[in-house]
């Protein structure tokens, strides 16, 4: 018995169709890997988070978040710097985001959709997290996409390509000049 048959039988036993079974099946059937299972993140987790980060901070005339290895950075930070409660929010969030993709794009998980679709999806989720943040009580969990966005921005702008190419970075300034001219378009200091 293959997996599809098994699920069909389960559906029969339950006397109807399994809600969400199509998405689940299409995921499995096309080799979708499990993500966000634990803070011992896998290569698939990192690849997935790289794409989320790249959608938030894409490559332009300067490198994007993926080139800055922000996916890896996120996994390190979640594992070492998040408490258990926030880790849980993040791990569940990885799956929620993927489910949202499947729901919106006919069963296609985040890794399967196009960059344009990713941007469309994350723009919606970004609005959702912003609204959530406005109404959130102090004891409520933080929104998972707030975490992902914050980690992406932090990781990117403190990465070598982010700090030295997207921003300006001088490791040893050697002097302080209090008031210098600034013209629109000049990059901000990294630190």
């Amino acid at each position: 018995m293959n997996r599809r048959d098994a699920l069909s039988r389960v559906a029969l036993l339950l006397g109807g169709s399994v809600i969400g079974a199509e998405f689940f099946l299409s995921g499995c059937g096309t080799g979708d890997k499990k993500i966000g299972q634990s803070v011992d993140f896998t290569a698939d987790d990192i690849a997935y988070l790289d794409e989320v980060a790249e959608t938030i901070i894409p490559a332009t005339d300067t490198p994007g978040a993926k080139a800055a290895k922000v996916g890896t950075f996120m996994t390190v930070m979640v594992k070492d710097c998040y408490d258990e409660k926030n880790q849980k929010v993040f791990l569940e969030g990885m799956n929620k985001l993927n489910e949202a993709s499947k729901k919106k794009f006919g069963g296609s998980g985040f890794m399967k959709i196009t960059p344009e679709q990713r941007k469309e999806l994350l723009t919606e989720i970004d609005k959702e997290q912003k609204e959530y943040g406005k109404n959130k009580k102090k004891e409520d969990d933080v929104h998972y996409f707030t975490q992902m966005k914050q980690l992406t921005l932090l990781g990117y702008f403190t990465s070598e390509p982010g700090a030295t190419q997207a921003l300006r970075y001088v490791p040893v300034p050697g002097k302080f000049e209090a008031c210098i001219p600034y013209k629109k378009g000049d990059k901000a200091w990294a630190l």
Partner: protein
Amino acid sequence: MGDSLNVHLNTKATVQNTYDAIVVGSGISGGWAAKELCEKGLKTLVLERGRNVEHIKDYAGTEKDIWQLIHHNKVTEEDRKNSPIQSKCYAFDEVSKKFFVNDLENPYNEVKKFWWIRGYHVGGRSLMWGRQSYRWSELDFEANAKDGHGVDWPIRYKDLAPWYSYVEKFAGINGNRDGLPQLPDGEFLPAMEMNCLEKHVAASLKQNYTDRVMIMGRSANHTKQVGDRGPCQYRNKCHQGCPFGGYFSSNSATLPAARATGNLTLRPNSIVLDVLYDKDKKRATGVRILDAETMKTEEYYAKIVFLNASTLGTAHILLHSVSDAFPNGFGNTSEQVGHNLMDHHYGVGAHGDYEGFADTYYYGRRPNGIYIPRFRNINEKTKRSDYVRGFGYQGGASRGRVNNGDGIGVELKASLTEPGNWTMGIGAWGEHLPYYENKATLNKDKKDKWGLPTLDIDCEFKENEKIMRKDMMDSAKEMLEKAGLKNVSTYDSDPPPGFCIHEMGTARMGRDPKTSVLNGNNQMHDVKNVFITDGACMASSACQNPSLTYMALTARAADFAVNELKKGNL
């Protein structure tokens, strides 16, 4: 004196362990004691409870770029678990955390909430300190006598002024000569400069107020080379240890000077258990230590002893040094040891945005800010009816990057790569009155891993501080709004005592041996060859950052001690 002392001392060992002077602690005041005593020709033993930290060599990590640090300089959950108190400190980061104690291994008991920030290593907190360096004024030394809180300082500004000059010249303090009676000028290196918005707010204060000014902060960063130190490279990573020697620390400045005399012996991993006392001669004979590595005790002897183990560290040693002569603690016939514990109260202020100066920016990371010296209760005109003493503000302006950008993608990225609006914040540091009931005592039931009693710390801010805080907040908002800042919001993070890391007062100076521990030369009333010149000696807290005053008091006391020694009085 230790009652479990079972070491058989022969004459040879005694001679080997005998010095002219012993200094307990190697932080900001211990370093100065070592330098002064060594330079005056005394064979000096410096005992440091923590490990050795060698200048530059042991600052590894500070040379790294932020992306080379695994957590991009952020605090981990493990750090928070091991050091729940230390990790709250603004200066605790992925590189500097090695300079903060493990709280689990170094317990103390918070009878009331008290966040005790510590660094147990050679150099102590002089490595991670904030470097703000301000003289006290006559106003501060007269305060207790005038309003009756605490005991009268046995010295006045004129007693300390030459010693401020003396230590400033060596330490290397930058600043402007601002001509303010409540914040005397010193021997300064060139000042740093205010940025455009800071200059604007300073001008606004001058225009809107007759009682206050905003000046450039004075800090122990070397704007010019001082000996072989510096100049400052404007990285703003001072608290990680500076490989350029760009700021004053024991490691960069006083300990090398002491070592250069050939008179210094530095013994790390030496936890001082008690001060040894000869009750016939009424003199200390030395100290007993526990070697933190071998767990063996050992005695060291000297003609004079300087205690510079930090306000609470020194109190611990005194309270732990009990004998028939001093059943309540060494030199504690006044019963003031451990009492009158103070800190500054801070973490309150305001910040706002400024629309303008969009065509200006700055270069370099200035490790210093602006200062608004005290303007309350400095004369009849500025007298408040609701509280005594006062506060000063530190702060600064900058152009942040936008960090809460809306949306995602190319537009977000573009918005985040340019500097945002100018913002400015000022936060107040307020005076904490000396209250006898704010105290540290020994808890013999709760011992640390060395088997030593821990400290119960029972300290709070009271009514005068709480009323002052309201003014600290409101005045901050008013000044920024008058300067044209927008969206001015106030904050009060209400940190508990300890967290300003300006703890003082546990062995105060005073004129009367019945109500104070030390005389006007930082000499114990009860034991003439013991001197205490760390924060423990302070009879009031003023509102200025205190380290410069500890330096001046130490150099002055060392001079007095050596003169007394030469005269045969000790």
